[in-house]
């Protein structure tokens, strides 16, 4: 029994949250919906851990849906990279679900809370589906599932601006998905297959054709839109700033990560590194990444809304990941994959801290956070540690990713790139310190009510993420070895 069950884990990983979502609608009770979302998030986390274990010991897993053989049927494929990404998505999901109920009940009207959990489960299932599927068209389907539900999640924000933010994201997100599917269509036209492994085999014959290069361009732009790759990021700051706090935390920590995963898959599994010789997309990514880390960090300095500040910081962080990809070396990809995980921990912690702040003072404007260091010591301490990690202070995960990124740049002999990465870290010090100074060194205005720290049900998940920042910052064996293994598998070409 258990053997058969464990053989079906890849399918269960996607099917369970998909099935759970309608139950939330049927039950309609906030508490029940929350409970379902919580349980299924944790079950998925368990499955992720088991899958990662299986992959690490037995190598990649291939699962044929309905036992139809690939490439005719849909194949689910779990390798180190996808198992690692699923671990990120499910652990962030599980932790935010513990945190969620109080924050959600405050920010979302009572009659729509069940919708939040439904949409959360759909997004969750979609993100996992993207990660696990071995089929380029099936990936598009999951991309749409996760995107459509995340538009709804964002529009649940309490301010009216949330609606325009969601609409803008919807338009650009749909353009992105369309570009992606056009690219996939072109590839199908040339190779006659949609299975990723099959594509990888057949593409080299036609790699130099204009159609394939155009396909690559379409796919890059499409994913770039989902990724928030500069200058395709315009939807992101508003979406993050106006979405309900928990949604921001979840999406910021997972959605862009999964988009980076798609980019890695397309470039390194489907096309292979040779494609960069035909089309210098690596240089193009490098330039965009560098512009992103400098300008977006610079823009972040001038924000007065802490959520928007972190949103711009996210665009900058995506820049780091893209720079890692653009190196096309094992170290560079290791840095990117590490940063996927590390940045999820960092931004998850920071956005949850802001959610806690909002829960108490109904604002995340930096000016309104004056004096919170004393009034909400545990929340703000979490914010400080998360911020240190964002900057890349040693003993936090941020330092680990920066270390590998700079090492990768030095290996390539890219001195100016290494210098710019460090320079943008300094910009991060500035924008993050702005918040610290206000929270710790400005007195709380007389007119403001005194507030206390948030309840334990919020503090514990917050500090679990903060703890992860320190744990994986001091003990990086698991993350580094997994990321390295995944990077080597990618660069070697074989999926």
């Amino acid at each position: 029994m258990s053997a058969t069950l464990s053989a079906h884990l890849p399918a269960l990983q996607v099917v369970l949250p998909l099935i759970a979502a309608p139950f939330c609608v049927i039950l309609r009770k906030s508490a029940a919906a929350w409970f379902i979302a919580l349980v299924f998030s944790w079950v998925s986390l368990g499955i992720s851990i088991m899958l990662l274990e299986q992959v690490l010991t037995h190598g990649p897993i291939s699962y044929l849906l309905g036992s139809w053989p690939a490439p005719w049927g849909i194949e689910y494929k779990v390798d180190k990279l996808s198992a690692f990404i699923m671990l990120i998505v499910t652990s962030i999901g599980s932790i935010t679900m513990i945190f969620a109920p109080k924050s959600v009940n405050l920010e979302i009207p009572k009659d729509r809370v069940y919708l939040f959990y439904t949409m959360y489960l759909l997004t969750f299932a979609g993100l996992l589906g993207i990660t696990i599927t071995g089929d380029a068209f099936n990936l598009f389907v999951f991309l749409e599932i996760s995107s459509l539900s995340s538009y709804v999640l964002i529009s649940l924000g309490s301010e009216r601006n949330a609606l325009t933010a969601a609409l803008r994201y919807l338009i650009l997100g749909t353009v992105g998905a369309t570009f992606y599917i056009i690219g996939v269509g072109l590839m199908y036209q040339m190779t006659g297959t949609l299975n990723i492994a099959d594509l990888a085999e057949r593409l080299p014959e036609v790699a130099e054709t204009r159609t394939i290069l155009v396909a690559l361009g379409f796919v890059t732009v499409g994913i770039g839109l989902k990724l928030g790759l500069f200058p395709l990021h315009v939807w992101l700051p508003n979406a993050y700033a106006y979405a309900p706090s928990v949604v921001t935390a979840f999406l910021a920590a997972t959605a862009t990560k999964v988009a980076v995963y798609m980019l890695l898959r397309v470039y390194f599994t489907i096309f292979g590194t040779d494609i960069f010789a035909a089309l210098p997309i690596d240089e193009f990514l490098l330039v965009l990444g560098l512009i992103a880390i400098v300008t977006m960090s610079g823009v972040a300095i001038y924000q007065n809304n802490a959520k928007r500040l972190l949103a711009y910081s996210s665009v900058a962080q995506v820049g780091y990941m893209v720079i890692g990809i653009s190196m096309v070396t094992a170290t560079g990809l290791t840095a990117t994959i590490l940063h996927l995980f590390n940045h999820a921990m960092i931004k998850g912690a920071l956005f949850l801290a802001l959610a806690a702040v909002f829960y108490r003072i109904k604002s995340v404007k930096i000016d309104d956070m004056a004096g919170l260091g004393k009034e909400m010591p545990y929340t703000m301490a979490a914010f400080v540690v998360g911020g240190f990690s964002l900057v890349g202070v040693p003993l936090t995960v941020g330092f680990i990713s920066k270390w590998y990124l700079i090492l990768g740049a030095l290996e390539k002999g890219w001195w100016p790139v290494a210098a710019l990465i460090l320079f943008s870290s300094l910009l991060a010090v500035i924008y993050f310190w702005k918040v610290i100074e206000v929270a710790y060194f400005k007195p709380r205005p007389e007119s403001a009510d005194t507030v206390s720290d948030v309840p334990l049900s919020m503090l514990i998940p917050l500090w679990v993420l903060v703890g992860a920042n320190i744990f994986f910052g001091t003990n990086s064996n698991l993350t580094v070895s997994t990321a390295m293994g995944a990077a080597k598998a990618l660069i070697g070409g074989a999926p």
Partner: protein
Amino acid sequence: MSPENAILWAIAVPLIGSIGILLTGKIANLRETVTLVTAVIMFLIVGSLTHIVLSGERPSVTLFEFLPGLTVTFTVEPLGMLFGLIASGLWIINSIYSIGYMRGNNEGNQTRFYFFFAIALASAVGVSFAGNMLTLFICYEILTLCTFPLVTHSGKPEAMKSGRTYLGILLGTSIGLQLLAIIWTWHATGTLDFKAGGILDGHVSGAAISVLLFLYMYGIGKAALMPIHRWLPAAMVAPTPVSALLHAVAVVKAGVFTVVKVIVYIFGYEFLAEQLTTNWLVYVAGFTILAASIVALRQDNLKRRLAYSTISQLSYVVMAAAILAPLSIMGAVLHIAAHAVGKITLFFAAGSIYTAAHKTEVSQLNGIGRKMPWTMGAFAIAALSMIGVPPTAGFLSKWYILMGALSVEHYFAIGVIVLSTLLNTGYFIPVIYNAFFKEADDKDDPHANHGEAPLPMVIALTATAIATVLLFFFSGLPLELATQVVGK
């Protein structure tokens, strides 16, 4: 206690103490007792390592591996031993002084003050015992971060502005330049361990060495080479005990300590001496010595004058190390100790003048020596040590630096030392002269009727003044440690 455990406890004790300070924050006397007891225990533990290091052992303990091949490791070697002894020993005296100062001036947030002070000491000892460059970097950064709340203690806009300068320069240089240098070193050599003779020989060559040296020297902002020295005068907005222990001893000495460490154990001074492109450091340090002295001459604010004097004295250490002669490196090591006891005394005196007489400017100090004989007496002794007059510690270190410069016939360095001695005399002697021999001119001042500062402060500054003299007569331990550093 095994030496390995002693290393860990030396760092853990102040951390545990900091928690004790938080817990006892409501009862001031108990809290101060915790600080004092912690300081004493820490000093005893650090001291217990001395004879082990002197006997030639290098006890080492690895905490964890945080990147493949890179560990957080603490190893005690002679240079770190000396710095550890100075920092932990002076913390005891400084704590006594702090009690007098913080209470005498009714400062707020005292629990926060003592808490971060203890953490600063833990990271200072972490710097001194660091077994590889990455461990050192980690402790170095923590030291920067945990002294920020001490610099901005008053919370006034002026303090916040200075705090930004402080953090901006120290973090900017360390992340922007030092970290790059460290990753470069790792990339080139595959190790970051401190090794006698250095680790770079055979891995980096030519002009790249000079660039790497530049990244290290300007990445160590705490050594305050010009033009990255501005954080130090800015840090003077802090309460005086902070200026005394942290910005005359722990933080700035962590800077020049790292400089010596990098030159001796990363580059290897013999390796550097073979290079043709690295002697610029002597000139930069020499320039800093002279320029800072000239600026000090023009400062009327006593603490700012002392700050510029510190910048100048720090560059003595950098220059001495950069001369690359064994004797001058011994001089650099000795100067870390000599300047520490001297400068802390000077700051103590400045703080006690402020507490007793509410005076901050040099021009207000006419005749104050008669009202505060102990304070100004200690000030005079320490000032003589800064100038390098025997029988004070400053003479000893200057002697070695000069000998080192002579041994390699570095006439620029010799000229700088002679000139700066004159300048030191120029900015210290008038203060002493006016304090003792001029008539007081503050008859209208409501604070004119003051005596000595509170007793704890007087005890502290007398103790460090005596130490300045004792270090001249009993220089066996620091000399032995310095000899072991150069391995000759």
